[in-house]
């Protein structure tokens, strides 16, 4: 995994003042909670804007993005330090190859995250995707499978390309609500969320440079909300919530230790094998031997001279 020494978060100063203030408030909230560092994992299909989101979040061009091809080949960790607080953002390659989930890519991501603890997972998708298809379900399931279902409990959904004109007859708010509801429903169903599980927050993102800005120079959505502080707020909410962070350890990567499973039953299993397999087979063989001597070739019996008859 490409990573560098934690650097000073200089990008923070590039944000508009209003955004900076909002972020500082949120960081202060984290400091109050005594959170010294935050690790954010960004996952999603290819080309949905994961790297762009990372860039927007950090305020620097940390990940190479390109309009027409996938530039992220491997996971990239970027760490930024600000006033004793470290933000780790992990950018990952797309999870889809062809029309299937790339398990291999997922596995590589997982292995590269060994010994890290994921505080927040951002699942990135496009807002302008109109429907949730089978591939989306597979991706959701694959994430749950590789990182454990609990990853979704620290997860949030980020919908990019948020500056869009909704189809005719639907208001923007309505469209966002329906799109996010459909996605959340799928996630909750695929991952098997129960009642009482935390609600997955949805953040809207517009990474494009042509994004409208308000008077303070902050990037705003068509409905006028400033999205970046909103996104960070969700991250902070999850990080400070009661849901524990997800550690990625050897056990998770290698799966459960099957070598230990049922080990205590080994003597019993062996005993049962002896009694239920070996013994009956021995008996069957004895039966075969008996049969063989009874039903040998005809000459075996014929050549026996019946002496008692002869003595008569």
């Amino acid at each position, binding site marked *: 995994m490409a990573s560098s020494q934690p650097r000073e978060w200089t990008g923070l100063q590039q944000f508009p003042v209003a955004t900076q203030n909002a972020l500082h408030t949120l960081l202060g909230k984290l400091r109050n909670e005594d959170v010294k560092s935050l690790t954010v994992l960004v996952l999603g299909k290819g080309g949905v804007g994961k790297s762009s989101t990372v860039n927007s979040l950090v305020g620097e061009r940390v990940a190479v993005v390109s309009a027409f091809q996938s530039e992220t*080949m491997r996971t990239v960790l970027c760490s930024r330090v600000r006033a004793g607080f470290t933000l780790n953002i992990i950018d990952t390659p797309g999870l889809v190859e062809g029309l299937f989930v790339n*398990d*291999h890519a997922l*596995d590589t991501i997982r*292995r590269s995250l060994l010994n890290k603890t994921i505080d927040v997972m951002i699942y990135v998708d496009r807002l302008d995707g109109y429907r949730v298809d089978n591939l989306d379900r597979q991706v959701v399931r694959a994430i749950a499978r590789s990182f454990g279902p609990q990853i979704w409990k620290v997860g949030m959904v980020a919908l990019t390309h948020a500056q869009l004109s909704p189809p005719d007859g639907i208001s923007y708010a309505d469209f966002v609500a329906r799109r996010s509801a459909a996605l959340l429903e799928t996630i909750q169903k695929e991952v098997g969320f129960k009642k009482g599980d935390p609600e997955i927050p949805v953040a809207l993102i517009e990474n494009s440079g042509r994004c409208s800005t308000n008077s303070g120079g902050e990037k705003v959505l068509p409905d006028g909300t400033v999205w970046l502080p909103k996104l960070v707020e969700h991250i902070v909410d999850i990080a400070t919530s009661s849901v524990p962070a997800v550690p990625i350890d050897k056990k998770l990567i*290698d*799966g*459960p*230790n*099957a*070598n230990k*499973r*049922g*080990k205590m*039953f*080994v003597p019993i*299993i*062996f005993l049962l*094998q002896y009694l239920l*397999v*070996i013994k009956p*087979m*021995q008996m*069957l*063989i*004895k039966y*075969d*031997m008996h049969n*063989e001597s009874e039903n040998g*070739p*005809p*000459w*075996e019996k*014929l*050549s*026996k*001279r*019946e*002496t008692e*008859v*002869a003595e008569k």
Partner: protein
Amino acid sequence: MASMLKTSLDLAVPEHKHTGVHQKLSGSLSVASHGSKGIFHIKSETSLDLNHESLASKRSKPFHISMKNVGLATIGTMSGIAGGCALQVMSGGGSGFGGWNGGGFGGGGGGGGGFWQGCFESFMAFANSEDPEKNYDSHGLKLGSPVNISKLNANKRYKISGVDLLDNRTGKLVGLDDPFYELITMKPGSIFTTAQFQTELENLSSCGMFESVTLDGLPQSDGTLRMRVSFVESEWQPSEAVRCVNVGLLPQSKPPDVDFTRMTDKEREAFIKTQEEEYKQRLRRTTPVILPNKVESDISAWLRQERRVTARILQTIRDRIQRWYHDNGFACAQVVNFGNLNTKEIVCEIVEGDITKLVVQFQDKMGLPCEGNTNMRIVERELPEQLQPGFVFNIEAGKKALRSVNSLGLFSNIEVNPRPDEENDGGIVVEIKLKELDQKTAEVSTEWSIAPGGSGWPTLSSVQPGGSVTFEHRNLSGLNRSLFGSVTSNNLLNPQDDLGFKMEYVHPYLDGVYNPRNRVFKASCFNSRKLSPVFTGGPGLDEVPTVWVDRAGVKANITENFTRQSKFTYGLVLEEVTTRDETSAICTNGCRTLPSGAFSMDGPPTTLSDTGMDRVGFFQANITRDTTSFINGTPVGARYIFQVDQGLGIGSKYPIFNRHQLTATHFLKLKHVEEGAKKAPPLVLVLHGRYGGCVGDLAAYDAFTLGGPYSVRGYNMGELGACRNFLELAMELRVPILNTQTYGFVEYGTDLGSSKDVRGNPTEYFRRAGSGMSYGLGVKLGLIRAEYTQDCNTGSGALFVRFGERF
């Protein structure tokens, strides 16, 4: 190292019918071995004589060659028996009395005593002494008119151009298939003198089949004679039944030394009466025959249809009875006499060949009797019960004895020989002659192998000298214990690269030679190197770096053989398993090449201890129940194998595990076929299932692999996955077409979702499917199978050529 030795066991018993009554049996058994391609090799005996032989190269037990080329055994040389109790058929003078002496009765009238005796040895002598290539003399007679042999020139040698048999009763020539032709030794093309003609005539007239016989020669234009035998067949009163009796061990009745011509009628009558009485008494002392009543009654039924009992009918009866005996393997059985002729019930006297004695004898290299090193009891316990005195000799019992004694592997030559008992008339002494193999053998063999060089072509430097040293000390203390050792290397210049060794001690008769239970103790130390199918790529991941699994250790087990195929083995194994990569360096993890071309070393751990080297001790048991038997070359029956490796917590990481495997294979015969050589094999459906599982510590090298010629055909070894539990199902239908076997099959293997339970999930890591199905068609040509298999995962098919059996 595969043994290239093939031992063929072939036992043939050709029967030569020289004449109607004389049968000579001879058989031969040969144990031959064929070495593989001739590769120069030096063979050293214990005497350290070096002799160069072009023998096989790769074989584990090369010394077998020297002994197995020899070996023949004869079963049943029955000429003695047949000669001693040459067939006698008697006809009684109205009273059913069978005369014992030929003289007075020979060629008598209808009611008169008939007596025939085959003097076939003399016939044989004639036939052999004549060289048919020799010149002959022209007859110098007038053509067209028959000449009695008494009128022929005594000094001339006549060539016979043909023989005709003329039945004087019917006035017709008899067909060539007539049994009487068997009696005639004159064959077209042979050269006879008048003396020989005279003997032939005497033999014919004294054989009892004919009331009168004359022999004439018809001169032919080319100077040869066409012989005509005119005869009147002997006849007796019609009978209704045949009774067979065994006269086997009765003393041969000697013909009374009396001269009938000097007797008065009264004396003669009295004499005949006493003879009759004696015969009755003799019949009382006979024993029942093993011939089933059914054969007897069949013959009786047939006999009732005949108007008269003629010599030919008797001959047919004799042939039918003898055929039954010989078909059932009683090669020594002979019909020796017919008695009570001219009565309602003919008595057929049979010598069945009762065994009176069983002799086991050792022979030295020169074939002289000697003291054997082998404990006699070892040979005796292999002999079938049916060879013991009191049983009727059967050639199958002889064959069985031969096979089982041969399977001891102690003798270079085994003969099972029935011979007539000189002290006990009609009895058979079974002689078993054994030539022992050398106890100690040692051998050094060298071979050159050509390894492909860097460019794929062999270069001079890639020619590697290899070789092996083996020694065997067999039959220790005469109890068939043996010690065997071998060291092999494919490259003597660098033997540390792949030094294979094996040392084995075999101790049979663990429960003593007198105990019928036969348990064999075996202890061995060994090493082996195998390619691990666990580290194999799935489709699309071809270039997986190989992982070699080296095992070295000691093993001690006890095998109990129940039947020829069913056995139970249990023992302990202590071994050190090392996993190595292509460069023979120890490797700890599997690796693969990433799509980017990078080399990833983070694969599944190869060993349990993560160090690349495991030590493990476990208990191993294997029980096989095999009831298959071969019908025309194809197995029919069922086979169950259960194998369990029980870890005992001995070794690296104190492994405790239970690794088990159950295999069940059923060969169902769908159609009945007649058994016999060159007959087509039956239609067989093979159902096969295998389950394996492991509870506890499982190292990658011990994981079960799916795919391969003995798992799911059409895939490479391990191509489908490496797992903790698996299930394999296969079905094969074998259809004989034109005496070759064709088959169609479907196979399926699944990991039961247990691939993830193997550490590092090698199935997923190497992108394998975890389950797969295949189907195909094949044809079996001898040992080779050619099959086209369709792989259902990728949907592609391929043609495979394989050796041996799948199941």
